[in-house]
């Protein structure tokens, strides 16, 4: 496909952003200036009303994404024909400064093509869903403006052919998720969560920024392809040298570690995972997008994009493997004790992203990308499902739900499919991608494999628990809508969501079912391997042992969780209820292992703000400024004292002359 098509894909949602933004501005101006929107004569008035209406914000975005999705799909078919190899596309110079040349360019290969389809597809469905979910919200137009910018940024990120452009869009993804998480900014929790998300991810971004300037200062290039070639081919005697570029092993390792820092922040891995659960404060469709195809996916994408760099250093690849394995298990434990359905899903996201991370660490590049794709579909489905539940109960607290399978059958069935896929049950998509990762781990790192397998069992358990609390048992009444916010006026009678919301659920559940079959024959793997400097044909992994083991574990853990939930009263009477026998452990887990408290309260608030910053500000005011003030006040004092001499009295002058003359005379006489 010609290069223009890719810029069109990028600019379509950007145009929708401009329209939605103007629509939102118009809404505000109208309130401020009544004369802003005059009445038009006759036939023009309905047209003007249309243009002023909220649909100007959402409809163009949906059309833009539909077209972009179609183009991305055509491109994917093209790319499959090319076996995922990159297209030859030149770059455009944006600006130069001395030796530095900054380019804008797109890189199209199997990896990008897959990402384009996933991003545009999931975003399209989320936007359709949002027209129902956000209907009637005062900020409807602002919402779609942010969503359009969010999708644009993510598309730019996957299209970028150089590290600087990737970093720029990476930051824009962070910004727009900040705006979306804090969308309901009147809630203090939302405003705080948005800031936290931006700052914690920016902490990781520092590593990425450092990595970028390091690689530029050593090699003089920011081209992704050139850096990957260097990492892939050049290693010899502690030096990487290829095609005129050179870099030492230490610098290459540091570069990889910097990228990992960025990815750990963006993809919410330990220890920078603390922002993601708080990010639930945003509207649910935002969570669906943030947790599936955008934002968190960016971290995994980054490491997949620079896969040769990560594997040019065993330090970097081992580090990310162990961070991933630990996070996968830890987050799964945390998911088990949440009572908020969105928080269960949030920790589940962290755990699943961790799978992709350790997959990259152990060398399972294609498996990681495959899981990234399948996870995007079923996690978007699960989040949208939780939003659908919230739409009729006004709550995310599973203790106030229950029995919803009867009132909301479509939501229940689609949520069920998403759960089965997430739990890795044959033959849904999550099964194929998760098994692929476990096979890679088994082949390369047994320790990581064990942690991953345990996490897989826990995944089934926490999802069964969530399903049980939400859809089974007695309905516990939901919650009244908060004053001033729109919600279901009668939460005691839950109802199925409107078609604009259920249709995306149905479509996503179909995709979540079948998308795993792409792995047959190693087809999917072949496309994404085409993105690497040394492409090779993918192969279809199959291991009976891991198939049987992981499936059995999931079934046993899920079944145990179901029995536990179903016979909770009897279990409690045996005295092994979670809240009574292991309270310390549970409190430890519900307090997120106290990491949040450590990071936010102790380090950020006490040590930095209350300590370092306070002392520095005191030093500035008392010492630095104090010296200045004393100096010029001292100068004024000297001056006002000396002014006494220049008092303009003739007599004083005469006396001074006389005294001076006498002193000189005495001096002359004495010496």
């Amino acid at each position, binding site marked *: 496909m010609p290069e223009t098509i890719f810029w069109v894909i990028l600019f379509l949602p950007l145009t929708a952003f401009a329209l939605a933004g103007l629509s939102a*501005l118009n809404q*505000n*101006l109208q*309130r*401020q*200036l009544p004369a802003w929107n005059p009445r038009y004569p006759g036939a023009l008035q309905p047209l003007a009303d249309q243009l002023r209406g909220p649909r100007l914000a959402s409809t163009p975005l949906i059309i833009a994404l539909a077209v972009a999705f179609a183009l991305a799909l055509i491109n994917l078919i093209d790319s499959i024909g090319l076996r995922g190899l990159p297209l030859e596309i030149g770059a455009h110079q*944006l*600006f*130069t*400064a*001395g*030796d*530095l040349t900054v380019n804008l360019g797109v890189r199209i290969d199997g990896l990008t093509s897959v990402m384009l389809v996933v991003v545009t597809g999931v975003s399209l469905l989320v936007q359709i869903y949002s027209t129902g979910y956000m209907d009637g919200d005062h900020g409807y137009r602002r919402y779609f403006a942010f969503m359009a910018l969010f999708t644009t940024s993510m598309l730019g990120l996957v299209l970028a052919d150089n590290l*600087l452009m990737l*970093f*720029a*869009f990476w*930051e*824009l993804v962070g*910004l727009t998720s*900040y705006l979306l998480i*804090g969308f309901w*900014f*009147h*809630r*203090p929790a939302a*405003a*705080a969560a*948005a*800031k936290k998300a*931006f*700052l914690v991810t*920016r*902490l990781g971004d*520092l590593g990425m*920024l*450092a990595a*970028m*300037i*390091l690689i*530029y*200062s050593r090699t003089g290039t920011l081209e992704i392809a050139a850096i990957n070639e260097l990492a892939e081919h050049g290693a010899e005697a502690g030096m990487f040298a290829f095609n005129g570029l050179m870099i030492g092993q230490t610098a290459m390792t540091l570069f990889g570690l910097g990228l990992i820092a960025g990815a750990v922040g963006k993809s919410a891995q330990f220890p920078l995972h603390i922002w993601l659960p708080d990010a639930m404060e945003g509207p649910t469709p935002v969570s669906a997008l943030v947790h599936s195809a955008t934002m968190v996916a960016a971290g995994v994408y980054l490491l997949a994009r620079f896969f040769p760099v990560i594997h040019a250093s065993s330090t970097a690849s081992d580090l990310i493997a162990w961070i991933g394995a630990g996070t996968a298990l830890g987050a799964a434990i945390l998911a088990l004790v949440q009572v908020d359905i969105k928080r269960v899903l949030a920790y589940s996201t962290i755990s699943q992203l961790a799978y992709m991370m350790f997959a990259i660490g152990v060398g399972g590049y294609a498996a990681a990308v495959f899981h990234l794709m399948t996870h995007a579909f079923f996690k978007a489905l699960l989040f949208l499902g939780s939003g659908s539940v919230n739409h009729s109960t006004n709550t995310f607290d599973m203790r106030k739900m229950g029995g919803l399978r009867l009132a909301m059958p479509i939501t229940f069935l689609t949520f069920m499919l998403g759960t089965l896929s997430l739990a890795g049950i044959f033959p849904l998509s999550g099964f194929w991608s998760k098994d692929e990762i476990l096979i890679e781990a088994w082949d390369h790192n047994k320790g990581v494999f064990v942690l991953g397998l345990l996490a897989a069992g826990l995944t089934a358990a926490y999802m069964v628990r969530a399903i049980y609390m939400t859809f089974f048992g007695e309905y516990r009444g939901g919650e009244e809508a908060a004053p001033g916010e729109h919600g279901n006026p009668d939460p005691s009678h839950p109802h199925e969501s409107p078609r604009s919301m259920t249709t995306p659920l149905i479509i996503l559940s179909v995709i979540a079912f079948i998308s795993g079959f792409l792995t047959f024959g190693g087809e999917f793997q072949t496309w994404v391997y085409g993105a690497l400097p040394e492409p090779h044909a993918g192969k279809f992994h199959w291991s009976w042992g891991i198939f049987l083991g992981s499936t059995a574990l999931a079934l046993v853990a899920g079944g145990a969780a179901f029995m536990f939930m179903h016979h909770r009263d009897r279990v409690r009477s045996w005295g092994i209820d979670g809240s009574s026998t292991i309270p310390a452990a549970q409190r430890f887990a519900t307090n997120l292992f106290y990491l949040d408290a450590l990071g936010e309260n102790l380090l950020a608030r006490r040590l930095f*703000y209350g300590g*370092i*910053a*306070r002392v*520095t*500000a005191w030093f*500035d005011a008392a010492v*630095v*400024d104090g010296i*200045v003030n004393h100096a*010029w006040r001292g100068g004024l004092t000297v001056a006002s004292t000396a002014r006494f001499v220049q008092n303009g009295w003739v007599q004083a002058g005469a006396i001074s002359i006389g005294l001076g003359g006498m002193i000189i005379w005495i001096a002359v006489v004495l010496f």
Partner: protein
Amino acid sequence: MDPGFPVLSLLIFLPLLGVLLIALLPGKHTPTDWLVQNAPGNQVDYPKWLALGISLGTLLIALVMFILFDRSVAGFQFVDEFDWISAEAVGFNVAYAFGVDGLSMPLVFLTAFLTVVAVLVSWRVDLRTKEYFAWLLVLETSVLGVFTSLDLIFFFLFWELELIPMFLLISIWGSGNRNYSALKFVLYTIFGSAFMLAGFLALGVAADTFDIREIRHDALAAAFLPAPAIFAFILIAFAIKLPVAPLHTWLPDAHTDAPTAVSVLLAGVLLKMGGYGILRLLFTLMPDVAADADLALAIIGAVSIVYGAVITIRQTDLKRLIAYSSVSHMGFVLLGVSALGTTGMSGAAMQLVTHGLITGMLFVMVGLVYDRTHTRQIADMRGLAHYIPLLGIGMVFAGLAGLGLPALAGFVAEITIFLGAFGSQTAPVSIALLGVLLAAAYILWALQRTFFGPKDEKWAHLPDANHWSEYTIIIALTALIVLLGVYPSIVMDLLEMGVAPIAATVEAAAASASSVAGGG
């Protein structure tokens, strides 16, 4: 580019001509006839309309020059010169010589642009408007003079001229502890100027000319002061102006107590005189000393970035917060020039331009909010975005630009500085990276506490942006910040043209010094 017409002199002195007009025409005109005295529309405020017209005229000339500027020729263009004091009479030459090159052209445009913004943002000033707008225009002439002087003596004259309007504008139209702040500003600057004048005299006497284009650094061996001392003397003045820690404490006071328009010009263009002076004078005239001082400059820059940002976080007054953030952002300028290469210097020059626009906009937004709330205390505000959403959008936009968001102007400058300086100044740049994180922290936290959060009924009466002057400023600043963010070459090409010869001079000086050292 030689237009055959002294267009540059016209640009510099047009505002002074406006001052004359304002002085001669009546001030706020109130008809004495009691019948029409109170009729609406009868009060015409001539000074502000005149000031707007004159500043727009100046901007137009600057724009024409920007367009006509020949991007293929290095060196100074639009040069106007004649001998002012001739050597035959007094033994030394002082020339009336003005010109612009790639480095000064964007700064000239920035000055003309921000003066229009300053006039518009003062639209509601009604205390002694005649003098107020006259002094604003005097300020414009003096800054334009600094950016275009090709003679050290004229540079110094305009540098000092700027103090008079600034002192009066802060102490008459300011707020709070304005007399203290105005005096502190003037004394601090004069303290630096004394050193600068000594340095200039040493330079000029040794080189036998005050013409910036003529002074050769090898002539300085004969100076009555050693070259490093001259360098340090002049650097003191520029470091105070920039300002860098620990010479910065006049800035928060001056900003906090100055009227909005003066804060805009102070942050937008006056601080830039320091960065401009470092590149135009120190690096051009004494490249050998500059090449030796690179590490010191980088460390001062990195310390300013982090130190300024840490203090910014503690601020409770919005204007003080932005003032301290300027200290942090101006540290990037020193860091950029310390790289000694074209890339770093281009980034530093770009930072001068982008910071002028972004911080100018931040001060405009804070000023507009203050006009309504009559408080700048962060603790008094909450949930403002509910009642003044348009100002909220402007403020959030300016804040995001301030924290270096990609696609907005500040990102281009900062990233260019980092990429340009890391190779030669690895440790200082690594420390300075922290500034990026801290900037996000203080800006987002300030936004969260002022504009976000639940509604506060006490602000329910606030009118949102509702005057054409306010819309004009916000739209113009937004447009320029986005333009420079997505199409930086429009300015970066010029700046690169301007700093490339400077970088080449420094490189040559460093090379000859090392070859001498190697040979010895």
